[in-house]
């Protein structure tokens, strides 16, 4: 490439040391920051989960009082959703979107820097509420009023933190849309884009559409709590159920914000290790778009028990069930991609396959939850907890790990330790099922979620689940070690890294130089992940 002939202002006087990371506008640096931040949050949120599982190991209260337990469940969710999963996807997008579409950087590098650096402040504020006299929020991550309005003054800090996270996500999303729409290399037509790019483009639109709705909802909570408005206060003519509608109008698309990029990652990895192009590329794109569209009209399935008219319940039930169709198409397409391929099973592929299996389990229990009469039993029980952890942990988090293993050689220039990677996969897979599968039974047997103590007949499954939780949790330290080890050294990685890989990111050397694609590449069918000429 013609690196030497292009000049950028920031080319020559790189700030050194820590300051470099504060002022960086380089998409690769910012991607790294996002990913490291997300790993830290994953460990903090995981520690909170272990507090929860430790308390639930046996009946009776042993370790924490119920109020602190509620703070843990609330903070665990907020930290994992807004601190771990979402920033991890944004970090992957930062690193990979320019590399995959042949752009030199993100469209708005300075805004990119702000998007990231808001996050540490937001989470410092959020986590600091744990040390405030009135404690961290304890009303669940959904912050349902009137309960959330009973919180102390620290509630204002929580809402401010959520606003900051929202601003960060919206700026990040705008940046990604602008990059994908305006920065593609010549020949990189929309229908030649890798699926990861497609899923992120759609996710970014979802973010821009719903994060402001969340901001509005929590602002209403703020004014209800501190400024005497009555949006949700029944005494003043407000309606607590209204909050649930607004929240879930954000909340359901949010669920897909956390899974669509995972679909994208898996759709990159499975073809690579099957040595075969992705099956049904076009239908994958349409399926993603339909899932995104449907996500706006199913929100009330989170609130079947509030008492809705029959017609509304039927509508939301049918709409929710319909989502199974495009989701099924995706799963079938992945299997068809593997079909008659030439498969190998390196760690990224293992995580991707684990994703397909366990996300499917979560998806199938999702179909069960859509059935309204049965949901009257499942709702707010541990069955729901099991369901969304299958889609979020063995779904989103496994996909993120798959993506990290897949692209780590490209980032560091070294191969990670394959043996340790496989151990990490098997360890995680076994224990994560020990952790979450018994929770299905607990829910069916009548254990409600968000309780710090339980009747003795729930003991055995809770113990199993807690053991799984601790084993899975501590297993993730191995993940940290593998990353650290890979960053420090290891077998040098080639540019292409994987035998079956396709796409622009594999045309640059490993590690990817600080500046790539200063001169745009020309994209044709030989490098494109998807061949355009198909009809």
């Amino acid at each position: 490439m013609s690196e030497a002939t292009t000049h950028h202002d920031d080319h020559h006087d790189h700030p050194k040391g820590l300051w470099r990371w504060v002022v960086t506008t380089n998409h690769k640096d910012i991607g790294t920051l996002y990913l490291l931040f997300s790993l830290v949050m994953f460990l903090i949120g995981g520690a909170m989960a272990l507090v929860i599982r430790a308390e639930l190991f046996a009946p009776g209260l042993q370790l924490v009082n119920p109020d602190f337990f509620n703070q843990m469940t609330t903070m665990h969710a907020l930290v994992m959703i807004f601190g771990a999963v979402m920033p991890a996807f944004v970090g992957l997008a930062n690193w990979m979107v320019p590399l995959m579409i042949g752009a030199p950087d993100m469209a708005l590098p300075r805004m990119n820097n702000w998007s990231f650096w808001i996050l540490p402040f937001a989470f410092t504020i959020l986590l600091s509420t744990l040390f405030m006299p009135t404690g961290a929020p304890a009303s669940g991550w959904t912050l349902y009023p009137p309960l959330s309005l009973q919180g102390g003054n620290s509630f204002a800090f929580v809402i401010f933190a959520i606003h900051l996270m929202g601003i960060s996500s919206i700026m990040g999303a705008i940046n990604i849309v602008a990059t994908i729409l305006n920065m593609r290399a010549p020949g990189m037509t929309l229908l030649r884009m890798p699926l990861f790019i497609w899923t992120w483009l759609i996710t970014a639109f979802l973010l821009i559409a719903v994060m402001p709705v969340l901001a509005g909802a929590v602002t209403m909570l703020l004014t209800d709590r501190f400024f005497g408005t009555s949006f949700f206060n029944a005494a003043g003519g407000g309606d607590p159920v209204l909050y649930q509608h607004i929240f879930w109008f954000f909340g359901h698309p949010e669920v897909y914000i956390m899974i669509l990029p995972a679909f994208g990652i898996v759709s990159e990895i499975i073809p690579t290790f099957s040595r075969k192009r992705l099956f049904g590329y076009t239908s994958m794109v349409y399926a993603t778009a339909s899932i995104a569209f449907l996500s706006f009209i199913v929100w009330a399935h989170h609130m079947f028990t509030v008492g809705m008219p029959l017609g509304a319940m039927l509508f939301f039930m049918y709409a929710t069930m319909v989502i199974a169709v495009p989701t099924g198409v995706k799963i079938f397409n992945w299997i068809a991609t593997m079909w008659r391929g030439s498969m190998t099973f390196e760690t990224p592929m293992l995580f991707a396959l684990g994703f397909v299996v366990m996300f499917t389990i979560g998806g199938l229990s999702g179909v069960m939850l859509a059935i309204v009469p049965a949901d009257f039993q499942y709702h707010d029980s541990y069955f729901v907890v099991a369901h969304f952890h299958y889609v979020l942990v063995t779904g989103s988090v496994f996909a993120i790990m798959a993506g990290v293993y897949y692209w780590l050689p490209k980032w560091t220039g070294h191969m990670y330790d394959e043996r340790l990677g496989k151990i990490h996969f098997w360890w995680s897979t076994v224990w994560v099922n020990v952790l979450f599968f018994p929770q299905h039974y607990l829910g069916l047997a009548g254990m409600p979620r968000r309780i710090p103590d339980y009747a003795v007949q729930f003991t055995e499954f809770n113990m199993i689940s807690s053991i799984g939780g601790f084993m899975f949790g501590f297993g993730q330290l191995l993940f940290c070690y593998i990353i650290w080890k890979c960053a420090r050294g290891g077998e040098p990685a080639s540019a292409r890294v994987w035998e079956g890989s396709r796409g622009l990111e594999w045309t640059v050397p490993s590690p990817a130089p600080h500046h790539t694609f200063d001169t745009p590449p020309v994209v044709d069918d030989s490098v494109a992940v998807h061949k355009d000429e198909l009809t």
Partner: protein
Amino acid sequence: MRHLANKGSTTPWLVAKLAVLAIAMFGFGYLLVPLYEKFCEITGIDGRTAGQATGVEYLTDQVDESRWVTVHFDATVNSGLPWQFEPVERMMQVRPGKLYETTYIAFNRADRPIVGQAVPSVAPGRASLFFNKTECFCFTEQLLGARESREMPVRFVVDPNLPERVELVTLSYILYQNEQATAVLAATD
């Protein structure tokens, strides 16, 4: 060689459009409040549509003599309000289309004046569309002096179009303290 530009949209223009979309969606969050109220009014989703009295005398020329509907009057006092509040009649058999009147009695047990406010609700929710009140005390502030009691009338008509399968309708009033108005009252004393 330039990178492929999105035809007709430069980056600043695209960013501006996306930012406007984000701001509009923030507004949409607030718009959901009146939309929801309207939606409730049309569908009776939360059983609260029978909120305000219509103030219009309901035409009573089409009394449905073929069936009885039981109306159950319910009263709840929020624990933050030291009042007693009860319907005079618990149950009433009514003919759809006919105008009826009943009374609730409220009593302030405290030794200071307090402002209360009643929030109405109808169960089942779908019946609220067919429950027309021509006079009620819903949502209006009720000032009761120390140890004062008051009779509060409700006049209503059950719409003859009430679905056949609804035989029993509960009209519920939940009484809350209006803390702001009570505080103002205490301050002006």
